[in-house]
């Protein structure tokens, strides 16, 4: 898989796909998209990088512990859900706030978005943790 064509295309794809996955993530709470879709897209492009450049080479400059990403996402998602309890509401109750920022115009801040970010990290962490461990056979 290490032809010059795939390498070049992968290099172009990585930033584009990651940006697109983030835009899907942020659109998620009331438009098509969401943490799961965004996470899968992010994981797929990292997986493509692993396949094209080889796991050993990629590990020399980019070697995060994906299990930590998973843990971070799950903590964030569950804490978001717990947060509603401290405001006297039931678990998972979401809150919406509209904010005016000078350059961006009106921005919708939703607590469900925070939960989505948690899901995003859980999906990335779990998929890539499995992918990396299955591919990594020397250990």
């Amino acid at each position, binding site marked *: 898989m290490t032809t010059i064509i795939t390498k070049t295309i992968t290099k172009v794809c990585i930033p584009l796909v990651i940006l697109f996955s983030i835009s899907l993530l942020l659109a998620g709470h009331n438009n098509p998209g969401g943490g799961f879709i965004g996470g899968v897209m992010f994981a797929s492009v990292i997986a493509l990088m692993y396949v094209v450049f080889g796991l050993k080479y990629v590990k020399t400059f980019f070697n995060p512990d994906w299990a930590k990403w998973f843990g971070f996402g*799950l903590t964030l998602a569950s804490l978001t859900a717990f947060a509603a309890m401290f405001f006297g509401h039931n678990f998972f109750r*979401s809150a919406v706030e509209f904010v005016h920022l000078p350059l961006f115009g009106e921005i919708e801040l939703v607590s469900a978005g925070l939960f989505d970010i948690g899901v995003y990290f859980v999906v990335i962490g779990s998929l890539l943790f499995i992918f990396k461990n299955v591919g990594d056979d020397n250990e």
Partner: protein
Amino acid sequence: MIAEMSHLPIILIAVPILMAALMLFLRSNEGVQKGLNITVSFVMMALSFVLLWQVWNGGIQVYEVGEWGKYGIILVADLLSSGMVVLSSLVSFLALLYSLDYIEGKSLNSSYHSLFNLLVAGLNGTFLTGDIFNMFVFFEILLLSSCALVVANEKGGVTKSSDKMEATFKYLVLNMIGSIVMLIAVASLYATVGTLNMADLSVKISAMSAAGTLPWHIFAIALLFIVVFGNKAAIFPMHYWLPDVHPTAPSPISAMLSGVMIKVGAYGMLRVFFLIFRDALFLFQPIIIFLALATIIIGAVSAVGQKDVKRLLAYSSVSQIGYVFLGIGFGTVHALAAALVFLVNHAIAKSMLFLTSGGIIHHAGTRDMTKMGGMIKTTPVMSVAFLIGAMSIAGLPPMGGFIAKFVLFDAGLLAEYYIPIAIALFFAVFTLFYMFRAWLLMFWGEIRDVEKYGEYSSHKSSYMITIPIITLAALAFIFGIYAEPLIALSQAIAEQLIDPQPYIDAVMTRVVR
């Protein structure tokens, strides 16, 4: 304080999930991981008792997740759910305490704690949810976390990795098929009735039944649910995965699987058939009774010939869950109460037996009973515990198992099911035979010592291992000599099951924000 207490149902589900995440960050710090997990598990157990007490005093509790009223996911804690949560939290706390010493260090701090917490979350979620699709989701959490836990290594490495892989593969594939069947059943139910809320389903199906417009495929869906819960509970045609999986799992996980996990099937059966399909129940009672009897027979006959101590206990579980389903099949208030008493007693005794067998295996270094002998001298605690468990499972008088079998057969005779009771009674004698055969083989006879044969390991059982065993043994004994509170609770649960109107009222009167 009261306001916080109304959040109990979700706390019992969400805190274990949060803990599972935290445990991943604490992987490098073994001591903190152990201490935190055992503390939280203890608090969860205490909270589950509080929940049962609240429900007992204040009636059915409904919790709306996200405040979406009856249109969102709701959690319902009635007596059955909260009672099952108490049982599962008790067994899981003791199993966790046991596994701190029993499981090999590397397995323990890499993923065991996270997965164990997810297992607890899945169990509590399955019991507390009031939404049939949500139940499916929690079934999946249960399945996947328990699958990974089966692979965890115990100290001493008695079970080969290849055996574990084979067992896990069987477990995963068969339960995935079960999950697909459940998904199809839930989807067809939704397509027919248009709701997933169990109370709402019950109301709508009752209305259809009263109007005479109950479509025929409701019966097919009910049969699919028998397959799903039968698969989880290892009922006769679907029992063959259990005797492979339960013995290969490390002992505390075997105790969880046999003590609580197979009861999830019985719980689902009670919930779905006595709430949703209560008008079609009369059609399925003969099927459930037939399957229960077949399970009792197959389990008992297979257990007699086993040499492997954990395999024997696993077949015994198959046989005993048949008695629970027999009670469910009879379907009267007394029979349901008896089934619940039986369920609790079996959960206590069988998880105790699996924990004890773990201690025995630890000591003997093998699972083959024919290679053990005379261990009454070297491990007196284990031998007494195993004797109490064996007596309870076989149904001998001072133990809880006697009361359980007595009320079950009594309820069956009251409902005039003479032939099923005769068959069940006959195969109860088999239980006596195989449990005592195992006890005699392991503890009596010629002493085989480490000096002579070099077989026994020098690993002594620590307090972490003996305390859970002694606690459960004491419970098995207490339920035998002072059974009234348990019987009274089971009677109340059975009355709630037979008349689900309070449950429906509690859920359906919710207002949407």
